[in-house]
């Protein structure tokens, strides 16, 4: 009372400005940390921590707090963890998401509820098209794009008859759709297997042998990919029918697949040897920290943190300024492992896609290397269904 209006106001202003200055950036990261796919989540977490190290563990002068959550590879659990991040931890960014079905189940718990949602891997069609949202960003790709590039590669190789296999879930369907969009030959066989339960592909491999295609294309992420390559070789098909893949061979499976995957071709937006300064530093420091080559999952997670940093820095740490942060993120003005790129109207990157091949590095480690560029500045086919413009 005795302070008077001016004094009260100035005191309040001081308090508010102190709160604003001291507010910690809270980032939720939903991924798979246990079970067979736990190695992927582990890789992503290592990349996030590396990104934070590179930033001096501060964004725009504010401290950063990470909340890692394990979706246990199940959409229901992923959604539950997402709700916890939004309601209890009150995070500013919900990120991560390896699996398309987990992302789709969790999306509505975040968008429109306050925080930004940034997918570090999954890119199902709906969130890039009809369900696009001003608070939703991607630092990966839309599912169809990588396999569209593969369709082009198969055309260039003169493949006429193709056999396709993928798991029967949201991403599997997108990947198959993607390759069907661009492949001009005939798809003579297609098997969608139960996911994630089915790990034995004997029945499908027998069908492939009977169908005698010119080539086989598969999408099997995580441990499924490793098992597929093993069984393909055990069935005597390796060397008989060429095998092409997307998201199936990665830096986690290569040290175990070794020669089984040597020379194998795949399409991807990135490779450890992609030639730009940000990527070189990322790959070198990641290898120093973990002793492994980073996966594409790790690379995308690194970008997620850098994208958030660009937003928080642009508003000077004022996390209530959502418009400011959104506008900053739309500029994609951050050091990305893929080099400079632009965001499409649906907040998915417009970026290059490469053909990459499994090779050995100077020390005899198996890794992947870029063969050629398949697409330059490619935009996903769902962007036109997105009503958002800016």
């Amino acid at each position, binding site marked *: 009372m005795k302070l008077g209006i001016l004094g009260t106001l100035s005191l309040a202003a001081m308090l508010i400005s102190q709160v604003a200055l001291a507010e910690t950036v809270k980032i939720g990261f939903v991924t798979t940390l246990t079970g067979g796919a736990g190695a992927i989540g582990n890789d992503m977490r290592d990349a996030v921590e590396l990104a934070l190290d590179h930033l001096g563990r501060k964004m725009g002068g504010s401290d950063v707090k990470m909340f890692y959550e394990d979706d246990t590879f199940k959409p229901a659990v992923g959604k539950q963890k997402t709700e916890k991040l939004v309601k209890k931890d009150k995070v500013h960014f919900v990120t991560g998401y390896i699996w398309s079905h987990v992302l789709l189940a969790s999306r509505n718990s975040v968008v429109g509820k306050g925080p930004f949602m940034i997918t570090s891997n999954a890119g199902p069609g709906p969130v890039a098209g009809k369900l696009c949202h001003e608070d939703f960003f991607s630092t990966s790709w839309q599912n169809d794009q990588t396999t569209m590039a593969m369709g082009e590669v198969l055309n260039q190789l003169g493949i006429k008859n193709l056999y396709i296999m993928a798991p029967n879930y949201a991403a599997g369907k997108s990947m198959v759709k993607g390759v069907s969009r661009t492949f001009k030959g005939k798809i003579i066989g297609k098997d969608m297997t139960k996911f994630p*339960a089915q790990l034995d592909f004997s029945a499908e491999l027998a069908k492939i042998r009977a169908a005698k295609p010119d080539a086989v294309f598969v999408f099997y992420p995580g441990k499924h990919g490793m098992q597929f390559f*093993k069984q393909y070789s055990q*069935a*005597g098909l390796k060397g008989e029918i060429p095998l092409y893949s997307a998201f199936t061979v990665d830096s986690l499976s290569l040290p175990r697949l070794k020669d089984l995957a040597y020379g194998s071709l795949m399409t991807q937006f990135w490779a450890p040897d992609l030639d730009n300064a940000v990527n070189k530093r990322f790959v070198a420091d990641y290898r120093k920290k973990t002793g492994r080559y980073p996966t594409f999952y790790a690379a995308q997670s690194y970008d997620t943190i850098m994208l958030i940093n660009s937003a928080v820095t642009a508003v000077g740490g004022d996390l209530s300024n959502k418009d400011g942060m959104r506008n900053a993120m739309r500029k994609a003005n951050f050091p990305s492992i893929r080099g400079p790129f632009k965001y499409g109207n649906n907040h998915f990157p417009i970026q290059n896609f490469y053909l990459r091949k499994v090779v050995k590095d100077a020390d005899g480690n198996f890794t992947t290397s870029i063969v050629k560029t398949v697409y330059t500045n490619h935009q996903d086919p769902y962007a036109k269904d997105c009503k958002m413009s800016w």
Partner: protein
Amino acid sequence: MNWILLLEQTLNGFQFGILLFLLAAGLTLIFGIMDLINLAHGSLYMMGAYFAATFTQWTDSFLLGALLALPACMLFGVILERIALRTLYTRSHLDQVLATFGLILFFNEFVRLIWGPIGLDIPLPGLLSGSVELFFGIRYPAFRLVIIAVGILVAFLLYLLVSKTRIGMLIRAGASNRQMVSALGININLLYTIVFGLGAALAGLAGLMAAPIMTVEIGMGEEILIVTFVVIVIGGVGSIKGAFVAALIVGFIDTVGRSFLPDILGLFFSNDVADTAAPAISSMLIYILMALILAIKPQGLFPPKGA
């Protein structure tokens, strides 16, 4: 229809069935004789694979690794029975389910601590890692043939053990009437330990046989465990013969369903419908079969006598 493909798929179904039998034989014995619902049976399968992978690394030989892993699994099973499961026999099934579910979580974490989150691989000797040419020009993976051979051998040995030996007689008696066996002065605790050790070794054998085809991973036993329960329910709880027949039926139906259902559905529906429905229906087939058999024979196909 392509007969060679059908024949190859029959072999595939047979091989999957044999693998299921190895798991189901142990599970059905433990359930039938000890009246214990052991959800951690899948963990024993996982331990078999991890033991085999480790021993193979040490000895540089898959055969030696496998031979060492079997007694290790049996020992592991006996210790588990002594320490954790013995107190559960008098408890209700719900308590057993809860406790053995807890064991699954414990073993997954245990494996992560010891072997790390990234799985292991078992490299096969050159002879077994490729495929061999069978009759009619069928090429079949050599190692899958080994699985079939080992499975048939184990089934035969189990048959001898159960129907020709004294311990087998006790096992059969235990499956039929547990109280009467203990009333007759048989050391039921010892019998339980033997049965559980045998079941653990069989599960471990299934795990180490599956490991070179699949990969050795945390939680690898959980998905196959559900199918194994279907097998023992269809076969009749406590019956090894039932487990054998049911495992082959389930393996065959699952494989052939996966293989031919999309084509069969394609005859009646549009391609899109067939593509979407076929994987869903083929994964339901074995459960539909189980429901049908339970409706006709609630005790399963071959219930033990007197059960």
